[in-house]
């Protein structure tokens, strides 16, 4: 009731002001309020506020009037310099490693070959010793195994901060991808052979002095692994049955950085590695692309398997 009155009053007020201006009087003289209102000015419709003329201004202008500070958008991509992006000059594990017993002739030959490390590895170890005077190759292998065990325990409990301190930024997403809605149970049973440093490289990135040290450690151990899916059902492995695992770990450190630490950088999987156990699930493999006239020969169809090459993870 007050609104229509006010509106008509305003209109009257403006009309009188205009007439007053024409009459050359500068003072605001207010005419008395009329006792009755004309009925035709009553509002008879209702337009919901959602349908009325909306603000046609852009989002930025509205934010400015609302005094909201819009953060500047950076079209940048973060890069990490505390670790390298891969494994340089990867170690190629000799075929049949840990298959032949030490007592046979081939086993002895393998052992002697392994004892003699290549010259580049020796150079790399010398460079590492320059930057870290307390570095001893023999002790380092045991330390590497400790790092490995701690990192995997942190992965099983999913302790993010601890995992980041034990594992490089390149290795972290590879370790944790797809694990968020799964439960992992991992235990280290025992070590079958003492760990050994088999390979060393010291690549320098971008500038000449920016050294990173990468050491490959060979580990033969017994571990148990069991992965459960979101509903607590077993996906892979078993908790009781341990497995013998031969692994080639790559540990990296940013040598020039005084706060750099030796962290797990990746693993090397040789081309002759045995196939992993299948998961406890039947999976549909997409069939070949056939033309409408072709027939699918299920008996002679070979399931495509990946080729056996060395890859590092």
């Amino acid at each position, binding site marked *: 009731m007050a609104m229509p009155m006010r509106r008509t009053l305003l209109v009257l007020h403006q009309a009188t002001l205009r007439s007053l201006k024409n009459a050359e009087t500068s003072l605001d003289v207010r005419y008395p309020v009329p006792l009755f209102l004309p009925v035709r000015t009553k509002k*008879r*419709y*209702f*337009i*919901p506020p*959602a*349908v009325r003329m909306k603000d046609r201004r852009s989002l930025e202008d509205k934010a400015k009037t609302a005094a909201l500070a819009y953060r500047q958008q950076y079209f940048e991509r973060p890069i990490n310099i505390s670790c390298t992006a891969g494994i340089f000059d990867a170690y190629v594990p000799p075929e049949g490693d840990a298959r032949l017993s030490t007592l046979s002739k081939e086993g002895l030959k393998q052992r002697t070959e392994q004892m003699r490390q290549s010259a580049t590895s020796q150079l790399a170890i010398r460079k590492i010793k320059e930057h870290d005077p307390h570095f001893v190759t023999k002790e380092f292998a045991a330390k590497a195994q400790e790092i490995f065990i701690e990192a995997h325990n942190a992965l099983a409990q*999913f302790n993010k901060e601890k995992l980041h301190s034990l594992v490089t930024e390149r290795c972290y997403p590879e370790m944790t991808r797809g694990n*968020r*809605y*799964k*439960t992992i*149970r991992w235990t280290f049973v025992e070590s079958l052979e003492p760990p050994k440093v088999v390979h060393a490289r010291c690549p320098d990135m971008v500038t000449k002095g920016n050294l990173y040290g990468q050491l490959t450690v060979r580990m033969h151990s017994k571990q148990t692994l*069991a992965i*459960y*899916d*979101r*509903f*607590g*059902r*077993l*996906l892979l492995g078993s908790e009781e049955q341990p497995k013998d695992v031969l692994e080639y770990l790559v540990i990296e450190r940013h040598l020039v950085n005084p706060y750099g630490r030796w962290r797990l950088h990746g693993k090397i999987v040789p081309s002759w590695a045995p196939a992993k156990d299948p998961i406890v*699930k*039947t999976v549909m493999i997409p069939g070949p692309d056939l033309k409408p006239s072709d027939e699918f020969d299920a008996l002679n169809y070979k399931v495509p398997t990946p080729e056996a090459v060395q890859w590092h993870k």
Partner: protein
Amino acid sequence: MAAAATGRGIGFIRNLSGLFHSRLSGVVGGPQQLSCLHTSTPLETKNWERNNLIVYPPQLADEPRRPAEIYHSRRQIKYSKDKMWYLAKMIQGMSIDGAIAQLEFNDKKGAKIMREVLLEAQEKAVKNHNVEYKSNLYVAESYTGKGRYLKRLRIHGRGMFGIMDRVYCHYFVKLVEGSPPKTEEKMSFDQAKDYVQTLKNRTIIHSL
């Protein structure tokens, strides 16, 4: 406006799912429960999809295998929730293959959309939720909800206006692994017998 609202909602839920890392048996994060303030309005929360994020602890060997549950939904479907309700209740309790087949040959507009949603849910189940056989699913829950309506003017004669609603609805579906449960159909004669029995079981208290 509706698009902007849903965009804000999606950003919100992404932040929430980043903070929300539930590794306990279905326990929701503490701070949200403890606060006495409404931190999220019913319009923005995507609680149905959040059910997909609960992680159960590993089962022991003697427990029966827990069936997988997949929650899926589609928001702001341009259809009436009352019209969609008929289809939703039609497929409730069916196996997924049966439901998809029935919706394929249904003439309603909502049937086509519902079929797409079911196929999406089936694919998600196989890919993300470790369901072994894609046909081994059944529709456990299926219902519709009201979406965010747009209001428009409906012009009548004599300068009269009406406010028209452009209706939108949400559709929610829950797929469970396994064969659909068999509903016991009670015969009318048995129902009548039970009724008579309840009448006969009545006792008069405080009587002589």
